[in-house]
């Protein structure tokens, strides 16, 4: 493995509430090379906040601290807004959850993709147009000229998510964070979208952080997996070795996964008393 793309050490994200600050990420550490890392966890486990803090997108009054948060040697926490803007999109990008909400309703698909590109590169109109069409083809959209002129409400969820991917990959970033990229989609198109992400990430040698609550999906598309619970990493393992997981939370999640042809009437419920101190 080459030198790490991303180093995270003791990352903490907290928000003030009426009863004092609440930490949603409590000392997360990991390093990422040009590989595919999956972060799995239930709702509220802090996985999305981890993704957003890498992009420094936690808005005030949220607070991010870390002993180390370095992307290619750049200290993310040290960067000012202007320096961050040069990194966002261009070097680290993020595919969001639901294209129904994450695409601007009053801009055409083409305009939104173009914006992602021209924010970082000065290009002629013709060239921009060509890059957009190429990118749309790369995410397997067959008639890119027509789709580029559509508004988000005129496309399906699966197509919306492919447009999202096109938009996030067009400036050719080195790291892509995919935050639940398929949880708003029909099962039938989930694999299609993930295949596209997988294909493009592998082909361009990018790093990928796939955030999901779906263990099976993450183990299929990632090299390494972090299992998060209540703001902490409870398990870290290679995707193939998930069945050898140690932590009771991971074991519980695995046990709760239904298998085709099984005869269990009832799936087991997580017994949180085994690990949770709170």
């Amino acid at each position, binding site marked *: 493995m080459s030198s790490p793309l991303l180093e995270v050490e003791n990352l903490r994200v907290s928000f003030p509430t009426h009863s004092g600050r609440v930490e949603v990420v409590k000392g997360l550490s990991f390093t990422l090379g040009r590989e595919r890392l999956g972060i799995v966890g239930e709702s509220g486990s802090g996985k999305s906040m981890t993704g957003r803090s890498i992009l420094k997108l936690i808005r005030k009054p949220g607070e991010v601290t870390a002993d180390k948060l370095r992307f290619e040697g750049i200290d993310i926490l040290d960067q000012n807004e202007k320096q961050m803007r040069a990194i966002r999109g261009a070097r680290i990008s993020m595919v969001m959850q639901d294209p129904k909400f994450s695409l*601007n*309703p*009053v*801009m055409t698909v083409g305009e939104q993709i173009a914006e992602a590109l021209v924010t970082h590169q000065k290009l002629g109109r013709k060239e921009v147009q060509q890059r957009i069409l190429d990118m749309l083809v790369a995410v397997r959209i067959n008639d890119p000229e027509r789709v580029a002129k559509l508004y988000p409400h005129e496309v399906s969820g699966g197509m919306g998510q492919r447009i999202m991917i096109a938009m996030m990959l067009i400036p050719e970033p080195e790291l892509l964070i995919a935050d639940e990229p398929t949880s708003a989609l029909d099962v039938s198109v989930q694999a299609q979208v993930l295949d596209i992400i997988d294909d493009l990430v592998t082909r361009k040698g990018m790093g990928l952080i796939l955030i999901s609550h779906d263990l099976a999906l993450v183990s299929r598309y990632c090299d390494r997996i972090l299992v998060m619970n209540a703001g902490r990493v409870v398990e870290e393992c290679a995707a193939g070795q998930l069945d050898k997981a140690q932590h009771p939370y991971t074991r519980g999640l695995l046990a709760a996964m239904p298998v085709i042809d099984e005869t269990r009437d009832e799936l087991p419920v997580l017994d949180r008393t085994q690990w949770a101190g709170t």
Partner: protein
Amino acid sequence: MTTEQPALTSPPPEKLTSKRTRRQISAVATFLVTLFLTFLGLLAITFFIGRVIPIDPVLAVVGDRATQAQYDAAKIAMGLDQPLYMQFISYVGNVFTGNLGMSVSTGRAVAADLSRFFPATFEMATLGILIGVAIGVPLGVTAAARQGSWLDQAIRVVGLLGYSVPAFWLGLVGLAVFYARLRWVGGPGRLDIFYDGLVTPITGMILIDSLVQGEFDIFWNAVWHIVLPASVLGFFSLAYIARMTRSFMLDQLSQEFVTTARVKGVPERIVIWRHAFNPIRVPLITVIGLSYAGLLEGSVMIETVFSWPGIGNYLTTALLNADMNAVLGSTLVIGAVFIVINKVSDVLYRVLDPRAR
């Protein structure tokens, strides 16, 4: 709404154009028909009001010393002996030929009165709403973009003042400070007295008429006079517009697509104006349209304080004198203003929101 068929194969271009033209023509036709029907509805309402209000229009004309014979003659002359639907038809006919009857209180034709008073209100209201939008919208956007900062608080205080300060008080204080003391603006009235009646009314709006006739002295004098009342009106609509803009913006700024724009590395200024502001243009148009319509009704307070010969004063005087024709005529004009503003908003929605097309 026409639903578009998803075109699997694009049709030949000439067919597409003719289809689009046909759709546009039918849209315009629908628009005109609904406009006409809405207006007819308005006429029915003013007509109905004219019949149910317990004022005898005949008596108002002949006076209470008239004999029964004179009264009956007048009633026939006014067409009030006809059945109701005939009266309505002749009323509609009259309105469309510009005959709104005579005003008892001014002794002139109501149509002539309105063509004098309404432009005065229109001029002031338009300038007022322009000020309100030009300042209120950026204030609201800024407040939302810096939610919780001192700037946000300051803007909120300005808005609160706009809500709670009485119009006549602000008008009087404005006159006392900017006219009487500082001499920055002109006093009450639309022009200084020695300019009065020098421009021939074309539109009735002095600012436009004087420019058209090349009377720049009069133009500047009119500006000098209208600035203060229009600013006072503008301040009130500004307060409302800024408050609504702020709340719409806050709603948008928490949307996912705004985060998407930030993820792309788009500068904050563009995030705010292109991504958060553009989608709120549609609800803002409703807010602005309604405030504008409210201003066009005329503000009796402001018109009285500034001796402005506007429709608010005219309508109030007419009401107090039981001057039915003038009341109905003014109501009709104000109703028509609401219809037009609503229709214009509808058109703008479609221009600004692809989902409404």
